[in-house]
């Protein structure tokens, strides 16, 4: 957008309207959060709801603070975060690589198609007992679960993006004498970049599902562990605290992907 010194009256009005709209959106966004937490706190402090069951914002704050004081807050966050990120990374890189291989060889794709379809439909949690027996009860099992949840979606998403490459552009490259590697490099991969970003966004959600699910099955530490443990001993403050932290982390990771999108997709006109 070009900035000009003096706008026409109409343009100034347009800008004003745009700013007003943004202000309305943001004040409602924040307003809803404040009202939600306010009502929650009020109801709990007036004992209109049982804070033992519903917890309350102030009790959550206290719980988080005490976790922070005994040093376990960042310990648990660190464990879950590293499991999630590692699983996310392996799923994204591995899934994309497998999708590339499947794009490369039609025959391989045809052979593996039914397996991928079945694996995609299978609820991964069904593999829980196997994972415990194979990978033990440590980090490895949780990361494996995270990868499992993310990788199939990644393969399917990226494969359909690679296959959707414009046939005429391929013909054009072939007429220039391009090799398959060059077609991949110059056309298929850059054309799939927007799909790759969309896939990253989907995978942020998948990775958290995988890691928390993993921690539900086997874990000695982490946010998922805190939620399960809190539920078992009826410490709903702990459950709510861990859930709120999860919300923050998931949002943070999503925004990092959006930031990445803004830096690598430079051309807004594509």
């Amino acid at each position, binding site marked *: 957008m070009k900035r000009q010194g003096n706008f026409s009256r109409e343009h100034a009005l347009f800008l004003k309207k745009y700013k007003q709209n943004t202000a309305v959106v943001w004040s409602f966004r924040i307003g809803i959060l404040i009202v939600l937490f306010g009502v929650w706190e009020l109801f709990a402090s007036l004992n209109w709801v049982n804070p033992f069951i519903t917890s309350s914002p102030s009790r959550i704050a206290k719980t988080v603070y005490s976790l922070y004081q005994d040093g376990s807050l960042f310990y648990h966050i660190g464990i879950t975060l590293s499991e999630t990120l590692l699983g996310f990374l392996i799923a994204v890189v591995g899934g994309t690589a497998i999708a590339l291989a499947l794009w490369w060889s039609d025959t391989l794709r045809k052979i593996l198609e039914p397996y991928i379809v079945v694996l995609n439909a299978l609820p991964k949690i069904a593999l829980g007992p196997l994972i415990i027996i194979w990978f033990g009860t440590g980090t490895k099992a949780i990361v494996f679960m995270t990868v499992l949840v993310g990788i199939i979606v990644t393969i399917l998403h990226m494969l359909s993006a690679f296959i959707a490459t*414009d046939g*005429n*552009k391929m*013909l*054009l*490259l*072939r*007429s*220039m*004498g*391009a090799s398959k590697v*060059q077609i991949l490099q*110059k*056309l298929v991969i*850059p*054309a799939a*970049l927007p799909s790759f970003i969309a896939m990253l966004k989907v995978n942020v959600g998948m990775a958290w599902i995988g890691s928390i699910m993993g921690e539900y099955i086997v874990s000695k530490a982490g946010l998922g562990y805190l939620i399960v443990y809190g539920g078992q001993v009826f410490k709903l403050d702990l459950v709510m605290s861990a859930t709120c932290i999860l919300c923050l982390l998931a949002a943070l990771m999503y925004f990092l992907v959006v930031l990445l999108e803004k830096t690598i997709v430079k*051309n807004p*006109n*594509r």
Partner: protein
Amino acid sequence: MKKEILRFRDVKLVYHTLRGETIAVENLTFSLKEGEFIAVIGPSGCGKTTLLSLAAGLLPPSDGEVLNDGLSFGYMLQKDELFPWRTIEKNIFLPLEIKKINTAENRERVKLLAEKYGLSEFLHSYPSQLSGGMRQRAALIRTLATNPDVLLLDEPFSALDYQTRLNVTEDVSQIIRSERKTALLITHDISEAISLADRVLVLSARPATVRFAHELDFGDVVNPLKRREERNFSAWFERLWRELNG
């Protein structure tokens, strides 16, 4: 007498699908001389595009021979097929990258070509910022980037609106003539064929074969709009129209 550089001899091409086989092209014989501009017209779906793929060696003929030894080809398609994530400059350098001749010298040559034909102010723009006519012009510069011996034009104007189409036809004709290129144009537009070519081939319905071949007699008049004003233009139109539909 100019040298014949591309020759089709009794070429046959069969497409195979699970439902059966289709003979797209049969007994196809013609040749293209150096510096010549041939237009090929034919009923729709008669295998005109197949002919270009055969010429470029992208499809091996089922029978007969395509002699295109040592020739390099530049393809221009119906749509410009510019890559939206590349600037115009990067788009016209693409063939250099593919052929691994992306040297400063070659880039300079292609850039000069682009500037000569009015693209200088758009070099750093993205395709979406250009009009349809400008985009097709950029596509032609990309086609010329590797200095190919033969240009294969697959209905390159048919996606443009009429006004733009006449202008771009004019531009492209001028560029091809002044760069002294040999060209093979596929089109379904009879007047386009007459206004551009030295020679017109009329193909039959599938399986395509050459039914008529005409040397056009416009003398020195190569400008498409000027040709449209010539006396024999409408005579040629009627004749070709009858041959196509006869």
